[in-house]
């Protein structure tokens, strides 16, 4: 409640992570800057880029791949959730989410979820790619900076 008795809406951060060191830096940065301050909520998001069906010999193989990746993503998300809680976020203000995408890119998936959750800020780590890598694979952070609307994007070095 604020002084006038009205409910204050949390500022909602969406942190998109993977198992890279740059993601770890992004989580630690948010923990350092915002942790312990009132009025903030965080959703930790892991996007699992499901390969096209062509990459699997059978549906069973595809399901097994998904189970393994989802379990690994859940473990990682829970670890980072604990990091944020230790930094002072109330446990009920740190949510985790896994999203499996095939047709959408990482950036499109992140932007869609930001919209659904009305997050004010997207946080990602910056993967240091060579120009060739960026050319042939694309860059999620560049695309987020380019395409994000009505929100801030933090790209953590």
């Amino acid at each position: 409640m604020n002084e006038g008795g009205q409910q204050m809406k949390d500022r909602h951060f969406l942190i998109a992570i993977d198992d890279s060191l740059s993601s770890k830096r992004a989580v630690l940065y948010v923990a350092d800057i915002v942790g312990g301050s009132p009025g903030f909520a965080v959703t930790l998001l892991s996007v699992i880029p499901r390969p096209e069906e062509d990459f699997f010999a059978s549906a069973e193989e595809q399901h097994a791949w998904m189970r393994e990746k989802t379990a690994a993503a859940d473990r990682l998300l829970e670890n980072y959730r604990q990091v944020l809680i230790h930094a002072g976020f109330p446990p009920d203000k740190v949510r985790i989410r896994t999203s499996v995408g095939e047709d959408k890119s990482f950036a499109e998936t992140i932007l869609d979820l930001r919209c659904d959750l009305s997050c004010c800020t997207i946080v990602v780590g910056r993967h240091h790619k060579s120009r060739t890598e960026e050319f042939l694979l694309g860059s999620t952070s560049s695309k987020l900076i380019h395409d994000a609307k009505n929100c801030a994007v933090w790209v953590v070095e």
Partner: protein
Amino acid sequence: MGYSEKEMRTLIRRWVPRDRVPKRIRIKDTADFFRVDYDDVVVLGDVPYLVRNNEREGRFGLEDEPKFWVKRSIDLLTGELKVLKWVFREEFHATIGDLVFECVRSPHKEARILELVRGREDFMQGTTVNDSAGNPLRILDYIRGRTLSQVTEGLGTGHEDFFYEHYPLLLDEFFGIVEAIRFLHENGEKHGDIRRDHLIKDETSGRYRWIDYDFNYRHGESRFAYDLFGLGNVLLYLTGRGDVTTQRLLRESPGLLDRLDADDVNIVFRNRVTNLRKVFPYIPESLNRVLMHFSAGARLYYETTDELLEDLGEAREDLNR
């Protein structure tokens, strides 16, 4: 439908010179391509095919590697040449520059695209039937014609003559080539293996057809970036009337090589010149700008065929002025 040996011999004689008719007719099971040889007959979907040679392909620096799972054949009911492509699923890592891509050769992908492009003049045509083990075997129409590189190399007396006399038409044809890939992308499919010898100019229609869509690669943020890289390489090849390499410049025009800097070469293949205007100064700036999107100095890359086509449209206007 079963065929007696006598019936089969009669069918073969309709399409094959008498001295080339096999002495013994061997009808082979279709499950294992390694057991199907020259002069064997396979029956697929009630149609008998007389098997001829394995197709060959230059790849990864190895010229004319036989593809044992791809066999040229004669449809014994119509006499048409077909290419039979057995299931050969492989997963492998392809190295492009200093990057390693997870790739797969998927018969299901090719079968899916054959359905998608049915009736289109800009794609290889074919059908899919199951072999005796239930795997998808593709029966492809044989395309008579030359590859894009075979067509391009013989044009013009020199580059300048080529550029003014032939290139505008080639660029028009390149639009069709890109538009075909746009169709795939709009339908969520990648070609997966875009290169100049996967484009054959059909002698019948005079149009280029894309062939071989069974490759797929694990993409990153940009789903079609690798396909667009392939299109860029084809465009550079067309515009240069072949690959303009630093080795070639060193040999033929060392003075020109001195004028190039690190940003002027291909972003992946560092021995290929991308800033072709420095070599051929009559190339319009607008066209060269398109080429430079594939250079080591590029800061912006094409992510969609529409972006490439839009810029190429401007370049074409300048070329026609």
